[in-house]
């Protein structure tokens, strides 16, 4: 039944007459076959998403066999950061909400993981059960903080929202100092060492196991975020970002969309913090500084806003660039005092320069420099893939409208 006939509850003839008038081409034919085909496209998209996630995860896990322990440690760090940058990219890229405090949300996840893991260790729980329960607690804690932030974010825009999130990350050391009994003050918290499960102990080293866990966590987080991005929630987010009034006039509850986006992004950041805590067996405020929080934003911009691949590229840059710079300066046989001054400062300088160069050359980030097929950009569904046709001359040139 057509739009019009459903409106009135009348038969199809009325609708057909409207179509005939509108198109000037006679009675339109409801394309039910096309409708079914496009509806099933969504199912295929989901299957393709899951398939892609499984293949990439298997490749990443397989790749750990080719890497030495330190590289596997770096890979685990990339995976942990990937969780946070993917959430941040979704938040900034799809809803236009700028958060400068995602490091604090990672810290919430890290502390949630550490506190729960330590409590479970004291209760005699260990292994997979401890990991699973601790990570659930981390997700819950970061989601709760994200929800509260999101409620504020729904009422704030641009620099005001950025200011609130900035305050969060600045306040983190003070919070850990005030609640030093529970949070360990400046030293933070240490957690019990998670060894390789007995069944795998003869096959892989602990760094490889940690990389597997981190890759698995990142795969789950990024698959969920990708599903949100390509589904109706992603459509609502983009509509709210681009034209909030138009979105609201079409029944989109813009406030809820913003709160949801912030909460989901916080949960992703919390997952990253929890994985980082699992890998490093510790969490402390020194790991989640303002500089690191800004670095997360720089990473998603360099990689490509709103893109999961861009978030991954940004995470790789965060981990590899300081290491690469350290390796190069170490090989240059510089004076000791200069090496000391450069340490920590040079990477920041290079990150700034890289940000400028990338945004000048590729406004869509490094992802934008990759060929479309390699960058995994969303493909247009078959029904919507007809080539653009020249626009008919439907706009009058400077036509007076006042009668």
């Amino acid at each position, binding site marked *: 039944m057509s*739009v*019009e006939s*459903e409106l009135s509850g009348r038969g199809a003839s009325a609708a057909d007459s409207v179509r005939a008038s509108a198109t000037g081409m006679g009675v339109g034919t409801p394309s039910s076959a096309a*409708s079914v085909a496009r509806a099933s496209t969504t199912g295929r998209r989901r299957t393709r998403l899951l398939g892609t996630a499984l293949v990439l995860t298997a490749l990443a896990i397989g790749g750990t066999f080719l890497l030495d322990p330190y590289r596997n440690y770096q890979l685990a760090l990339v995976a942990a950061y990937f969780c946070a940058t993917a959430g941040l990219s979704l938040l900034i890229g799809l809803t236009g909400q700028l958060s400068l405090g995602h490091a604090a949300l990672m810290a919430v996840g890290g502390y949630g993981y550490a506190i729960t893991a330590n409590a479970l260790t004291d209760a005699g729980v260990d292994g997979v059960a401890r990991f699973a329960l601790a990570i659930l607690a981390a997700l819950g804690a970061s989601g709760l903080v994200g929800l509260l932030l999101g409620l504020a974010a729904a009422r704030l825009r641009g620099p005001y929202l950025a200011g609130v999130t900035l305050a969060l990350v600045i306040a983190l050391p003070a919070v850990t100092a005030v609640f030093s009994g529970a949070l360990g003050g400046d030293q933070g918290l240490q957690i019990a060492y998670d060894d390789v499960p007995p069944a795998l102990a003869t096959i892989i080293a602990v760094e490889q196991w940690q990389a597997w866990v981190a890759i698995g966590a990142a795969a789950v987080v990024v698959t969920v975020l990708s599903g949100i991005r390509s589904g109706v929630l992603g459509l609502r987010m*983009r509509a709210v970002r681009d034209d909030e009034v138009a979105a609201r006039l*079409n029944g989109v509850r813009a406030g809820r969309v913003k709160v949801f986006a912030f909460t989901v992004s916080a949960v992703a950041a919390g997952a990253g913090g929890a994985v980082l805590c699992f890998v490093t067996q510790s969490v402390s405020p020194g790991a989640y500084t303002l500089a690191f929080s800004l670095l997360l934003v720089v990473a998603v911009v360099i990689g490509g806003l709103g893109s999961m691949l861009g978030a991954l590229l940004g995470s790789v840059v965060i981990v590899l660039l300081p290491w690469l710079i350290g390796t190069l300066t170490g090989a240059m046989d510089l004076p000791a005092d200069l090496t000391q001054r450069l340490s920590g400062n040079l990477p920041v300088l290079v990150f700034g320069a890289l940000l400028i160069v990338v945004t000048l050359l590729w406004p869509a980030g490094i992802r934008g420099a990759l060929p479309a097929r390699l960058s995994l950009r969303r493909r247009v569904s078959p029904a919507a893939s007809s080539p653009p046709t020249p626009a008919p*001359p439907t706009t009058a040139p400077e036509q007076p409208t006042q*009668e």
Partner: protein
Amino acid sequence: MTPLLEIDAITAGYGGSPVLHEVGLAIPQGAIVALLGANGAGKTTLLRTISGLVAPASGRVVLDGRDLSSVSVEDRSRSGLAQVPEGRSVVAELTVDENLRLGGLWRFDRRQLTAAVDEIYDLFEPLSRRRAASGHQLSGGERQMLALGRAIIARPRMLLLDEPSLGLAPRVVAQILGVLRRLRDDTGLTVLLAEQNVTSALAIADHGVVLSLGSVVADRPAAELLSDGALRHAYLGF
């Protein structure tokens, strides 16, 4: 006829400066009402007040017997009140397909939504050739069709249209207004059409309301308005 939309002594404006002064209207179910007046008369403000984008200082908006005073913009839309704002308000970064889907997200499940989008393509055939084009790639006429299609996809009972003819070729204006009239005739859709193109608007309207400086100065059948030379000359400029 029972009024579908009642506007009861609305006073509204921006920043404490009223634009509308105790405006009252009653729009019957299935009517097309042309809202006429010069620039600054308050047409857009009245539409924005009805849709909830502007909060009135006093007065009420009642849709089908329900007072909308405390109802949000989003929920007014979900109650069957659709608006196509001036400037077409197409989400420029979304494709034609996505814009249309956006309009029906709250109402339909996935399969129904796909069918409803196809119905709009049947209604506005030129859009079906531009499904993958972004909003900013469309011509003015296509954008107006898209904005109208997105507004009616959720099957509203009341449609508010703000200057749909602005900047469009006469052929396209005639096509869009023709669709409105047919929708009203065939489905009972009620339309409040704010328009400066007086002759085009009154040609399809049952009733005309003239606003001047935020007050209603005439509320008559369209044919009467057209035949009242003094009124046309004083308020409509021809």
